[in-house]
């Protein structure tokens, strides 16, 4: 009878399982294998070619650098905001949170395009600066790393704020007040009690922002174009423009492994207690 229950459960689970195996697992394995095949046989050719390409290395480290900066900025700007939001009255807080969630729901193309308007040659910033006669001709803001950073920051900022607010909300009640009553100053209470307890939210938010930034396509595509390539836009270029499938598979494997490694690494920072 127990075996019967087990079989019945598998019946329920099987369609989803089959679907994922066929269209998720196998294609991934396929490109993994494909990356090692050149001229009909097993070979490291694609990897050698890719890794020896200095452009690739530049692009790779640039992607990591940009993602890191975005994450740092997200924490720097997001933590204070989260603190403020977490302390608000539940009604106002819910409203603000729903606004933030709203921005997440909006199409990434639309969101990134807005920056296009702001940073373009005749965009907001340039218009503003030239109207104040600070500059003589338009500053090139678009198609730079800075542009991508700003765009990614705006895109992923909510993903940092939401888990943080959640973590701060879920602090054991009265913990901060208990610390204050025991003699801790406001900042001491924060750094020794509140901040450490919010680490879980910080790690979650950080992971989301970092991995999101490395794998983002829309923002680097629109704000970086062909001038400032990241891993994602490189992948697109190699596959859909250059039809360098071998190279493309390598880029995708590299991206995949980096993302997984990142997840693992950041997971270490999760607090042991719960």
């Amino acid at each position, binding site marked *: 009878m127990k075996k019967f229950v*087990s079989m019945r459960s598998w019946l329920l*689970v099987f369609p989803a399982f089959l679907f994922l195996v066929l269209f998720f697992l196998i294609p991934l394995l396929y490109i993994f294998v494909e990356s090692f095949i050149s001229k009909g046989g097993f070979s490291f050719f694609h990897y050698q070619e890719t890794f020896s390409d200095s452009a690739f290395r530049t692009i790779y480290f640039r992607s990591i650098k940009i993602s890191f900066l975005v994450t740092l900025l997200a924490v720097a700007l997001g933590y204070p905001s989260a603190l403020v939001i977490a302390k608000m009255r539940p009604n106002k807080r819910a409203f603000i949170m729903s606004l933030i969630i709203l921005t997440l729901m909006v199409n990434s193309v639309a969101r990134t395009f807005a920056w296009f308007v702001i940073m373009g040659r005749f965009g907001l910033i340039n218009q503003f600066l030239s109207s104040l006669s600070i500059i003589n001709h338009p500053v090139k803001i678009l198609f730079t790393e800075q542009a991508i950073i700003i765009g990614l920051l705006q895109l992923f900022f909510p993903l940092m704020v939401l888990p943080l607010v959640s973590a701060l909300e879920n602090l054991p009640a009265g913990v901060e007040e208990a610390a204050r009553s025991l003699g801790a100053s406001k900042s001491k209470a924060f750094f020794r009690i509140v901040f450490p307890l919010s680490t879980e939210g910080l790690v979650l938010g950080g992971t989301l922002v970092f991995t999101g930034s490395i794998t983002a396509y829309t923002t680097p595509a629109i704000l970086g174009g062909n001038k400032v390539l990241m891993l994602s836009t490189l992948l697109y270029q190699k596959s859909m423009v250059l039809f360098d499938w071998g190279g493309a598979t390598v880029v995708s494997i590299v991206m995949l492994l980096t993302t997984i490694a990142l997840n693992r690494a950041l997971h270490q920072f999760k607090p042991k207690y719960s």
Partner: protein
Amino acid sequence: MKKQWLSLSILILTFIFLLGPFLILFISAFGSESTIIFPPKKFSIFWFQKVLNMHMFQNAFKTSVFLATASTFVALIIGVPAAYASNRFSYWGKETLNLFFTSPIIVPGLIIGFSLLRFFVLFGNFSIFLGLFIGHTIILLPYIIRVVSASLSNFDTSIEEAAVSLGASRLKTFFLVVLPNVRSGVTAAFILAFITSLNDVPVSLFLSGPGVAPLPIQMLTYMEYYFDPTITALSTILIVFTIFIVQVAEKTLGLSGFLSGRRNEIS
């Protein structure tokens, strides 16, 4: 007192940063010039009219909606039973299976789309729409399973057992007792998945083809060749549309409850 001003200004700055770009987008969409200028010189709804009449975008929109509906439905059909089994039964390999079902979230959408593209090539002529449909279903599945699981775990098993004790088979119990009570959870999952599909870029990027492209991809393609307020107008329309759907969902379901701790591919 000083603290209050600090808090307020932080909040205001944050919101200017988050929402400001949208505002600018809105305003410049009403421009009359053929290039994007901010602030616009004259007020006009010309670009809105234009974009709404363009076949390219009309088709893309239809494709997006069709795609979202189909993949959300299939994801629900295969995902809900899996969520139910995971929540109520214990069986061989359950932990590994649960991990497997949530793994598409960890894999970047780009990679999912790319791997599917290479995989489908093996099969020769593959309908583009079918490819898109499969890709979208893959990325929607984890959300469906996650949200439905959460709903189910809030539903008392003893109520199901009571139904069984009164003579209802497990299947009947599911449809007569469980489903009516997790309806809001399932609907929330539906809306979440639908919007995710509509907004998707990474998976659709590789799986789109000539004539068959969802709206975001179509927008990107257009931007490669043209630089005019068409996209601004379209973006504005989309944003308003999204706001509308989310508000409706929020009012009827309290959607934000399901989203704390959400992982998302949004680019």
